[in-house]
């Protein structure tokens, strides 16, 4: 069985909980005292991941770190429909990789601002917020043009991909870092669509979609 080394309030860990919930993958959780205990920097954890970062999984002896890498692995191995990571479509794989890197940029900015405000990390919060707004503007335009073409998701596929999962957590948690989303209506509509994917699950700070139908 898959073991997830997990911290409840981590958006990067949430990416994996989301995909495993969408795919119905059973897994075991080992809670890590990321805060205040800094267990991810402890000696035993650094043997698992020398970078001292969450998440990490152990799947039958295969130890993997990095949320985006683990999304690629889990979708490749456990998604019989092949839609979350379409291995036979070079163009889509390229697009997905592009947006997985973009998601890392969201982590470096939006998540950093949240860590600054909530957990007192010594980051330049103004730079982090400005960086997040720059990325949100790019994504909002991308999603808006997609909507005009009848595309609901980040990549050009009729089904959501792991790129949507990778970008979702630190967008939906952005207000905890003082980054409002009022100016990004296409992002807000897309967030609502993600919340309506069958099997969607929440984390602390994320609420389920309301009972109303998504705006057409």
């Amino acid at each position, binding site marked *: 069985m898959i073991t997830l080394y997990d911290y*409840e*309030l981590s958006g990067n860990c949430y990416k994996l909980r989301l995909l495993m919930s969408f795919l119905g993958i059973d897994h075991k959780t080992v*809670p*890590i*005292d990321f*805060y*205040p*205990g800094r*267990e991810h920097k402890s000696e035993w954890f650094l043997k698992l991941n020398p970078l001292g970062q969450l998440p990490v999984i152990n799947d039958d002896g295969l130890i993997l770190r990095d949320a985006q890498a683990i999304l690629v692995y889990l979708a490749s191995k456990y998604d019989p429909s092949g839609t979350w990571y379409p291995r036979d479509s070079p163009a889509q794989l390229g697009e997905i990789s592009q947006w997985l890197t973009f998601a890392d940029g969201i982590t470096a900015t939006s998540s950093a601002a949240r860590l600054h*405000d*909530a*957990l*007192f990390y010594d980051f330049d919060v103004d730079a982090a917020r400005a960086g997040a707004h720059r990325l949100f503007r790019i994504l909002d335009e991308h999603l808006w043009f997609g909507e005009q073409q009848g595309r609901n998701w980040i990549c050009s596929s009729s089904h959501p991909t792991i790129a949507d999962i990778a970008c979702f957590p630190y967008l939906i948690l952005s*207000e*905890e870092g*003082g980054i409002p989303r009022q100016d990004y209506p296409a992002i807000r509509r897309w967030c609502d669509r993600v919340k309506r994917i069958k099997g969607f699950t929440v*984390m*602390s*700070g994320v*609420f389920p979609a309301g009972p109303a139908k998504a705006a057409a």
Partner: protein
Amino acid sequence: MAKCTDTVILNLWHPIGAIAETSPFVVEETVLLEERVSFAVSENGEPVVWRSRPGLRPGDRAPVIDIDERLPAKSAYGYVWTSLGSPPEDLFPIPEYAEADRRKLNAATFGVNVSAPRAIENFLDMGHFPYVHTDILGVEPHTEVKEYDVEISADRDEILATRCRFFQPMASTTSDGGADVDYVYRVPHPYCSVLYKSSPLDETRRDVIAVFLQPVDQEHVRAHMLLCVLDEDNEDKVIKRFQQTIFGQDKPILENQVPKRLPLDPRAETPIRADKSAIAYRRWLSQKGVTYGVIPVAA
């Protein structure tokens, strides 16, 4: 924004950091009532607190014995407390903290973009349990806040809400299923509240969970969460995770309250019967003359 001029608040003890997370003789810095304050603890956890000054920066080693011009300092319930005014000798009592078989932990200290009184009110509110803490502290259709009692105790100068009951699917790390849970709430300090809830392990005793809010300014706090619970089985990190999960669910609610400061005029917001403890809390703050973190009643 002007620094704090509210003498009621200035003269209180305020929490500024968890002792378990502080290395002995190393300077920590934080903000209290818009002023930078620094502290260090000795190897046995005795704190020294001072207004931040050049020459003693965060991370520096501090020979605490040599520090002059100190602020009042106290170690209580696992935290360093200080005051920018003239505090009373004693902090409010939590007698259960002395019981040897309890697990005593700082679940976490979180920065929250909210005024301290708004955070206290949310802590007192049971009505949100099924909607915000779904499947943990509440679940539909068990949404009713049953009649409970509230008094403002004149001798102890605190608010007491008793006979609170709520159906909880998973009241704590030691729960093995849903149960009707008894609650008692105390507000013994304008920015601190202590909650007692039935222990799933021992029907004669109660778990104690307290929230101690450090006012950074009128609209930002550091929320320190004390757990003082009965649990023989779970690791510290599992107990902390449970409480952090709950607080993480409250956080966006707290941060979206408008206005951020708590209006004390009874006509400013419309309470329902379930808000009895909040009504008493607002009245108590008004009677004390608290102005910091609130919108006082117009004269």
